[in-house]
């Protein structure tokens, strides 16, 4: 399994969040499917040349978000989307982020319809791949 994780060490974003977010995105795009095994912490640390504790921290974060599960002794796996629970707080965060994007879009002078088109267009970038892979 190839993970295309890019580390930017001068950024404001801590390295563990960079790792966690790029893996989340790979899961959302189905580049990593349910049941896929993530690289061992030490292997990924050596590959990315980052501290193993940083990788472990990123995995913990993904686990807290319900995206992966760790099975003692065998490794960390992408969880089954059907079993992921989203609570009210998660939905709130999502709503807040959407509001933020809508505000920016409208301030740029875009119409509501433009935003919907853009949203659909971006969504296909994620969902299409998912369809393609399942065939």
């Amino acid at each position: 399994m190839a993970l295309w994780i890019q580390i930017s060490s001068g950024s404001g974003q801590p390295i563990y969040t960079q790792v966690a977010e790029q893996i989340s995105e790979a899961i959302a795009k189905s580049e990593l499917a349910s049941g896929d095994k993530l690289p061992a912490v030490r292997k990924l640390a050596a590959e990315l040349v980052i501290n193993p504790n940083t990788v472990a921290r990123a995995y913990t974060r993904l686990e807290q978000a319900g995206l992966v599960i760790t099975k003692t002794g065998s490794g960390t796996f992408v969880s089954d989307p059907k079993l992921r629970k989203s609570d009210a707080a998660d939905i709130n965060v999502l709503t807040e982020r959407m509001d933020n994007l809508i505000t920016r879009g409208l301030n740029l002078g875009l119409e509501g319809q433009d935003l919907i088109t853009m949203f659909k267009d971006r969504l296909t970038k994620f969902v299409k791949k998912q369809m393609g892979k399942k065939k």
Partner: protein
Amino acid sequence: MTETVLQTLGLTKYYGSTLALDHMNLQIPQGCICGFVGRNGAGKTTAIKLMLGLLRPTAGSSRLLGCDSQQLEPAIRQRIGYVTEGHRLFRWMSINELEKFQRAFFPKQWDDKFFADMIEYFGLPKKRKIKHLSNGERAQVSLALALAPNPELLIMDDPTLGLDAAIRRQFLEGMIELIMREGRTVLFSSHILGDVERVSDRIAVIDKGVLRANCSLEEFRAAVKKVIFSFTDSPPAEVDIDGLLHCRRSDKEVELILVGTADEQIAEWAKSNGAEKHQILQMNLEDQFIEYTAPANHRRLFRWEEK
């Protein structure tokens, strides 16, 4: 329980009447990579030399692997690796000779194959004399010499100073490789904050001989924040908030550098001082370091003034 492999207690050094290190209390737990950062002349090299027993402290003490730094026996020294600033190696020796020389200090655990593999990977001819190597090549030999004895504690004084990005990365890889072995610990000083952020899980910040931070990197990253408050009228004349490090103001804005102030406390301050809005910025490690070690009331060197 994690063992402390390096501990200093009130470690102090005067050179004549100049105070170089002021009561440093540093602990480094086993298994971590600790980035040791500070501006030029902050006391990093002095601290490292004291830890290794290469200098006598004016006061205080330090212990490596449970043994007093001033009385490190050969048996303890064999478990410690040290890379000097500038990679000073014996210039008249060839790489081969230097390996033999160095191996003699670590008779039990020297890994011949590991050393040979590294030299081959770097593409260095083993018969070449050190004086005929470039700075980068000398640094590579120094890295191989540091890792071959598989030290329990590796201390490196600014090992990547003046090296190109590729060789710097090899040093980072070397540290990660070592730390993956059971119970290994690394302390390294550097001015490249991006490198420190990449491989360290702990950070020690020293400023004018005083240890100002000694914590996990994550804690440090979360603690130092820049907040910009915007006001419709002029901002308050006095700023009083916990953890205030620097305060800069303009007509309608106040920019604060805060250490360890909770977000709720920041929101509370904004509210009670009538700020219209406030924004907490995610700083990168380099900016955090510069702000953290800047003198009070410091200004930019150059400032653009509207005419």
